[in-house]
């Protein structure tokens, strides 16, 4: 961070895409932060590590901004950055046998020849994927992931056992990930 002037990203362009405000890109990042941080907390189960991961993800997103494709979902791109940073840190920790802090300054594009190669989802891709899914999968996904229902609540609303909720949800999430091209490397 110290090498970057306030208000500038790594490429040197000021964050002033419109007069008197953040660039649209930075503003979108701000708007995504609550969700990003909850995702990071799910991955790390540690508030401090989640903060590190979310911050590293934002730094990396800003520095790799040119690689984000306009018209694709920024949240998907940002989440995949977070996922890859987290997994890279896990791999490195295993290799080196010690705790490794997540650091966006590692693996920056241009610094070691690597490019950010993250998920690019079109804006309506999730809607399209949902539309292709069986109705019972779609309904369960919306109850759990959008409405925030617990498995027990979903079980009662749909009048199915919790075991069925879990197995159906598993198939639905796998199906969604596959339709969105989110396969493991």
């Amino acid at each position, binding site marked *: 961070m110290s090498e970057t002037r*306030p208000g500038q990203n790594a490429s040197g362009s000021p*964050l002033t895409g419109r007069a008197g405000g*953040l660039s649209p890109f930075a503003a979108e990042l701000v708007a995504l932060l609550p969700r990003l*941080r909850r995702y990071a907390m799910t991955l790390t189960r540690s508030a401090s590590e989640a903060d590190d991961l979310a911050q590293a993800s934002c730094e990396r997103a800003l520095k790799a901004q040119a690689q984000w494709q306009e018209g694709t979902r920024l949240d998907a791109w940002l989440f995949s950055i977070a996922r890859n940073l987290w997994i890279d840190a896990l791999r490195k920790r295993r290799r080196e046998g010690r705790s490794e802090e997540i650091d966006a300054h590692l693996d920056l594009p241009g610094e070691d020849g690597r490019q950010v190669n993250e998920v690019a989802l079109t804006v309506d891709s999730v809607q399209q994927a949902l539309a292709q899914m069986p109705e019972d999968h779609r309904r369960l996904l919306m109850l759990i992931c959008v409405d925030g229902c617990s498995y027990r609540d979903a079980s009662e609303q749909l009048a199915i056992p919790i075991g069925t909720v879990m197995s159906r949800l598993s198939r639905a999430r796998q199906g969604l990930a596959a339709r969105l091209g989110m396969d493991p490397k």
Partner: protein
Amino acid sequence: MTKPVVSDEMLIALADGELAAAEADRLHAQIMDDPELAERFAILAETRFLLEAEGEAKQEAVPERFLSAIAAAEARPAAVQPKLTVIAGGAEAKPAGNLPPRAPRAPWRLPLAASFLLVAGGVAGYLVAGRGGPDAGRGIAVAGLDRAALSAALDTVASGGAVALPGGALRIIASHKLADGRLCREYAVSGAGQGTSGWNGVDCRDGQGWRTEFVAATQPEAPGYKPASGGALAEAFLLERGAEGPLDPAAEQGLLKGAR
């Protein structure tokens, strides 16, 4: 040793916060030790957060004028650029009972203000209000307030006092002395009308004048949604900078009169 097979159902239940704590800890430890398992887990967890956007309320939007403060700060690089960091404990500053009801199993939901700080820190602290030269910054509008008017009020108004400034009503909450000896003042600015957003700020004074070092948006009360207060985050910020608590009125007056 053969690794125990972990089903996707278990990974999803972990991601959804449906496992008992002990089971969740055990499975998470296993995930942390197995990058391939970790990737499966991350992808399955990610589907939840992608889907969330399909029904996402706009209640976490950042007020336009709040963003304008960043742009104003960013337009004039500060001579000294203290790094704004995520405030440890900010998310814990309010009990989980204040979290939005639609995410009952998400005690880590980051309040807007802390979210904002997160990105401010990540972007090299450009939230620090600009004061680039001898006369720069004196007239910068910080989140809609005139810089000079704000500085004048910070120089004179005792804690507990309030003044109306163009752009909002300013209420001085408290004065603090940081570990580095600087005087800081914690204040709140209410929005122009009922139901509009306001913000909490902390300005600190050095030999050149006042500088805004912390701002956090506060949101109007909305049914069912009460973000952590900007005040709690401001206090966390001050604690992190070594403040030991609000100054008493005599100490405050002494410092306000000194080195003006």
